């Protein structure tokens, strides 16, 4: 081809990319913005817990057990061992968020890898992978989490492991169905006709169009994961005392509902606020990524 080259790449008019549009739509959604603000605040609170918390979350005192909300020096009261509730709630965010978000995060990578492999290769590979996934899908998620961590025993690592196993199948299924759909679109055929390797096609053409929807789906699972993770600690699995963690705090304060009911309910309120914020954030992200709207 003998045509004078256009060497003015710097002058090319650039369109705002897809993600720029997503950001623009997301910023116009007040509910999603509030949810994002709450989530960020919770994360900052957890990260800087030692700086934010007014007291030592471990310091117990038999003399000031189960003080009500509004007690001087203990704005949210004290727990069954006389520890400052506010400080424990702030510190509790660390383990609760870690145990809720990490399994979804890891499962997002593993599940996407399985789903995209199965979806792009199809055939026998797909059958083997997806039928295995089906087996884990045959358990209600709560039951599977409890079965695995029940057998493995209490502990943060065992809890994380169990929850990760719980969230891989749903993510893999979504990734597989989106990939199968994308693989049949003509731009993937065009890429194959250009002689690109399967790996390159997946990297350039499949991943970018699959990972978005799968990511949104995964963010929707964070809320479930938070509730489940705290639920495991509530059952005595997962986090062990005396660590502050919302589910575990709810468990140890259960008998206190006859003495200081609203203090006992506080850790659950934190789980609820976190969970609903992640859900609203996920909903906002979903509608912002829907190119049709």
């Amino acid at each position, binding site marked *: 081809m003998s045509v004078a080259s256009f060497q003015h*790449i710097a002058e090319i008019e650039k369109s705002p990319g897809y993600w720029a549009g997503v950001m623009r739509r997301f910023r116009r959604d007040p509910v999603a913005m509030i949810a994002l603000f709450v989530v960020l605040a919770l994360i900052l609170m957890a990260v800087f817990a030692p700086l934010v918390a007014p007291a030592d979350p471990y310091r117990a005192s038999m003399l000031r057990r189960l003080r009500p909300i509004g007690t001087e020096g203990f704005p949210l009261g004290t727990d069954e061992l006389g520890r400052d509730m506010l400080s424990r709630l702030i510190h509790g965010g660390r383990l609760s968020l870690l145990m809720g978000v990490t399994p979804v995060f890891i499962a997002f990578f593993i599940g996407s890898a399985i789903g995209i492999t199965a979806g792009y290769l199809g055939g026998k590979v797909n059958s083997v992978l997806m039928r295995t996934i089906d087996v884990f899908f045959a358990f209600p998620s709560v039951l599977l989490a409890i079965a695995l961590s029940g057998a493995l025993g209490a502990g943060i690592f065992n809890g994380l492991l169990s929850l990760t196993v719980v969230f891989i199948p749903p993510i893999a299924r979504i990734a597989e169905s989106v990939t199968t759909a994308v693989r049949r679109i003509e*731009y993937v055929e065009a890429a194959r006709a*250009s002689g690109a390797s399967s790996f390159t096609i997946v990297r*350039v053409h499949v991943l970018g169009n699959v990972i978005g929807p799968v990511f949104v789906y995964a963010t929707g699972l964070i809320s479930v994961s938070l509730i489940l993770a705290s639920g495991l600690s509530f059952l005595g699995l997962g986090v062990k005392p005396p660590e502050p963690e919302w589910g575990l705090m709810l468990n140890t304060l259960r008998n206190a509902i006859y003495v200081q009911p609203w203090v006992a309910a506080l850790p659950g309120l934190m789980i609820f606020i976190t969970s609903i914020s992640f859900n609203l954030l996920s909903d906002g992200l979903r509608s912002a990524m829907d*190119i049709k709207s």
Partner: protein
Amino acid sequence: MTIESAALLQVNDLTKHFPLSGGFFGRSAGVVRAVDSISFEVAPGETLGIVGESGCGKSTTARLLVNLIEPDSGQVILEGKRVGADMSVRDMRRHMQMVFQDSYASLNPRLTMEDSIAFGPNVNGMARQKALALAHDLLFRVGLEPRRFAGRYPHELSGGQRQRVNIARALAFSPKIVILDEAVSALDKSVEAQVLNLLADLKKELALTYIFISHDLNVVRHMSDRVMVMYLGQVAEIGPVDSLYSSPAHPYTRALLAAMPSMDPDKRTMEAPLAGDPPNPINPPPGCRFHTRCKFAQDVCAKEQPVLHILPHAGHMAACHAHIPHSGHSGLEARA
């Protein structure tokens, strides 16, 4: 035939049957005979038109040629070299590129136009900056100002503009053959004309060879040097465009042409257009596949499959018992 020795592309007995999955544990419940032992040749510099109703195997043929679908059997011979034996599939694709019908689905929504066009050369070893410069050249070639269009995303372009980009992408390899699979079918008539003119110009400038697939007989006549008519995965008739349009031999071709809208009332034939849908390609009828819809069908048509038979006009062949001497068919004029 003179073009035989000089064929750029030669296709021998190309066959693809799709297994129908279903039943217990994916046990095959039958096969779709999408493309059934077709053979043809394409001479350098010509345009071969392929026509037929939807489901006749036109698009499958296109995908088989560039190996997007693996053929069950048959040979694709490019410049005398057998693809898969004397020439790798990868090398073949550098010489033979394809443009698809759906201009939007053909472009990755997450890539800019320059990235879409540069992708192919890039993965074939061209440096990124060079590939982008090439993309800009190609955009200019297909009539899109690079400055304005290189950084755009597919949804910001019109259908005609997108199809120009798809053509540019196909040209990025400097191919010898471009397969246009219903490439203008989804466009508005006015836009279609512009893209067809572009294709004609490009063909002249770059000495291209086209395989032009369409269900629109007017467009095929306008574009092609020779035309191949397909019916249920087989070749019904093939010949030079003038000969085929003026004296169609196969009853199916006649019916297609009769159903073709014509501006000239004198040219309208009295022959009845095709009735009904083509039979199911899963269980095609025995004998001649067209006999269930053919008004000239006789006993032999249901029993024996007709082979392509050379007609008196140069390079014109048809698979119809009526034209094969001693076939047992009394001929088309007997009852018409």
